[in-house]
């Protein structure tokens, strides 16, 4: 409360919160873990690492370096080559491409691929088709984290806007939005997800939209109740007395006061969406085939445990669990730092 004469902007709420966060050892450790994941995800997104996750670099179920001697009959099988076909005269007689056989043969030679040797040992092993599990896990992490972030942005955005309107205006607006909320929460979640997936088609965007559009209700409730609380606070009344417009009051005056809750909500939703993506993948509504996610990996490799190929499940389960657990702890610390008055959790 001292009033020294320096004209510098004093420590804002956010800087103080940041300091509180840094003071928490759990937050520091989890923050570091998350930072590593984010850096890896960014590197993977920019193509610097895990670019070749979809390349088949090893034999089927190539062994991981830490279990090099597990028997791998599948690996041998995957090396079997099929015989080249021989075009006979009878076929030539009916083949519409026959006139260009020679040209094709010539072009075939110029178009040949280089022969690559398939690895029998990979850092974290290989999957069914011989892709590098390490690269796959990294790429999957990038996609899953991106989905989690994007979906939670959408969900929180929808929740905040609707919650703000409903809480701030009350009355008819509130009735209408509460109706929408009630309808959404009365339909079983799984049906809602299935229905939205059917409507929206397929793709990463769909996954994000499905999660975002079905996951806004919690944020809506929270923000609505906060706005109800805040709209009668004196500082809002003061802004009203000053002559600030409704939108100005909603988003310029009140929003900064609930923004910490929004941030907490965001990070909470990231976790729940990363988990929801797993269920979505299990239902067959995951990301498209040219992409990979943790959810897809888990639902694809469920069976591998039984046949003794535990490394893919182990690495994606570990990668995901470490991330999600660290994120949860970080969210708790974040809540402590941002909302010190509320009792933890």
């Amino acid at each position, binding site marked *: 409360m001292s009033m020294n004469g320096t004209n510098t902007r004093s420590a804002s709420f956010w800087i103080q919160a940041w300091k509180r966060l840094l003071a928490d050892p759990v937050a520091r450790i989890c923050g570091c873990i998350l930072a590593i994941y984010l850096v890896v995800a960014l590197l993977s997104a920019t193509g610097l690492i895990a670019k070749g996750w979809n390349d088949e670099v090893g034999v089927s179920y190539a062994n991981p370096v830490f279990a090099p001697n597990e028997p791998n009959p599948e690996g041998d099988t995957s090396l079997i080559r*099929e015989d080249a076909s021989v075009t006979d005269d009878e076929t030539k007689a009916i083949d519409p491409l026959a006139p260009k056989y020679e040209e094709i043969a010539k072009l075939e030679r110029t178009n040949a691929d280089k022969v690559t040797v398939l690895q029998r040992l990979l850092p974290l092993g290989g999957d069914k088709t011989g892709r590098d599990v390490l690269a796959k896990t990294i790429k999957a992490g990038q996609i899953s984290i991106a989905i989690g972030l994007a979906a939670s942005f959408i969900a929180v955005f929808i929740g905040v806007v609707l919650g703000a309107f409903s809480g701030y205006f009350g009355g008819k607006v509130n009735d209408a939005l509460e109706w929408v909320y009630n309808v959404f929460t009365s339909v079983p979640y799984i049906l809602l997800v299935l229905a939205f997936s059917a409507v929206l088609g397929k793709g990463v965007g769909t996954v994000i939209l499905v999660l975002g559009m079905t996951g806004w209700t919690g944020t809506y409730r929270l923000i609505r109740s906060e706005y109800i609380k805040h709209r009668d606070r004196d500082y809002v009344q003061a802004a009203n007395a000053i002559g600030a417009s409704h939108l100005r009051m909603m988003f310029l005056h009140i929003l900064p006061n609930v923004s910490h809750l929004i941030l907490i909500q965001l990070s909470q939703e990231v976790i729940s969406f990363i988990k929801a993506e797993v269920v979505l993948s299990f239902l067959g509504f995951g990301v498209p085939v040219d992409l990979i996610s943790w959810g897809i990996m888990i639902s694809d490799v469920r069976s591998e445990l039984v046949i003794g190929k535990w490394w893919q499940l182990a690495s994606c389960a570990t990668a995901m669990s470490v991330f999600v657990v660290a994120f949860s702890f970080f969210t708790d610390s974040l809540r402590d730092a941002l909302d010190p008055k509320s009792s933890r959790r």
Partner: protein
Amino acid sequence: MKLKSHLRLINSLIFSFLAVCSIHASAAADMKKTLHFTFEAAETGFDPAEVSDNYSNIIIANIFDPLLGYDHLARPAKPIPNTAESLPEIKENGRIYVFKLKKGIYFADDPAFNGKKRELTAEDYVYSLKRLVDPNKNAPWAFLLQGKVVGLDEKIEEAKKKKKFDFDSIVEGLKATDKYTLQITLKKPDYNLPYIMAMQNTGAVAREVVEKYGADLDSHPVGTGPYRLVEWQRAHRMVLEANSNYRGEVYKPTTEVDPRDRDIAKSFEGRSLPSVGRIDIRVVESGQASYLSFLNGQIDILIRLGAEYVSQAAPGGKLSPALEKKGVKFYSEAEPDTTYNLFNMDDPVVGGYTADKVALRRAIVLSYNNGKLVNVLMKRQGLIAQSPVPPGITGYDPAYKNPLGGFNLAKARGILDAYGYKDCDGDGWREAPGCKPLMITYLSSASAGSKRDTDELLKNGFDKIGVKLKIEMTPFPDLVKRRQSGKYQMAGAAWGADYPDAENYMQLLYGPNKGAGNESRFDFPVFNKLYEEIATMPQSDERQKKFITMNRLVAAYAPWGLNAHRIRTHLVQPWAKGFKYHPIEQPKFMYYDIDLEKRRAVLGE
């Protein structure tokens, strides 16, 4: 099956008298014996005329009796009489078939019969077959008879108009000439009719039962077969019990038995069928769960083990030592089915019969790594398909190798280069001739346990030859509908044999069948003519040759990109006997037996 199959069919008429002898004694099924069995997908119902899914059909096959059946052990599949005294008498070069029924076959008891014993008659078959084509029902099996039987199509049209099928009016081509004789007259010769009459869905239902239960017939299947349904918890559990009215059978192989199956054949000696009193069937959708329960002894016979577990149970095609020690038996058999990628021949980009269009399809076919599909994705639980016709089917030639098939990226690129599919704008993807944009959409369906890995394989091939592929996911019902109506470019499909004849496959590419079975909308005059010929003749060398020519046409014009024939692996506990997987016929529990003592000994109960 290059052999003179037709002659064998005739021959078997004679042998078949011996095949299954009715012993006319009440069944000696041991009610203490319960067989535990699983379905990997839920059943839907048990009205033979209404349902078409595999799992419901297993139940139907064990409750209802078609006129003919298949020899349990004979391979290739061989029809034998079931409720018929013998194989049918064939007249007018396969246009008229006369079936004579065994006497003294009774339906299982049911309140619909008012406490009386109800004997099976030829009229029951007339009625049951008419039900199959009733247009006011889903009638998934109508195609078996529609367009084939004299006078039947008119009845169908009439029923459509009246919204009611008149079962009492007589159809010329489908009538009972006396109490035990059924005569079927066809519009043109068709030597596949006996096969149709061996399908479980042509089994006899009693009219009284149908009329009594109406919409509930689903849950009241009453037939003359060895079992009856005593408990049904939908999509979860079915319990069958031996039908006390069953005529009782003894099985003796009609042909030389494969040496591997001798033990099985032996197990039938002195055994009257059915042997097991109760069959307890559960729906277990999770492959992991059913495999683990088998290992725990909770399941006696596990058919169609998930491919991913085969390499565990039988690595390299040999039973694992652990299971070997337990005495588990293991059967690996090719199924008469074919998976393939469809091209829509009416599509402006991938369809058409000109060389450049053919070139695109052929390149795509060459880019698909069938070897990887079979060896890695299917874990060797498959054979690379060389022709549309799968093994175990009349018309299949194991010596025939697809002359234009194989996985050859260099050649695929060569073909595309030769026909002007080049990368004009340097973005790494090829354009259509004349630098028109080229992107192919593949239709796939999303569901729990989707076939993501095969989609990945396809995409991989396209990427390697520089053709853009978009995979569109759509609900399964829509996928089916769009394939039927030709609203797609490329899609995956599979066909399992209805009856063991190559005609069943070739009809899928017959021009006039567009919009009904012919989903690729392939319409090529030479092929159409060949089909019309093979459809009306019995199997012969000449017919076999025509099949080969048709195979070559399919390879050259590539309306289909052939993928694989599935191999299925089945596991049997040491205490279960009599199991042999039949390629056409559904599993029939009456052949199976259980050694209770052995089970007790092994499980240590």
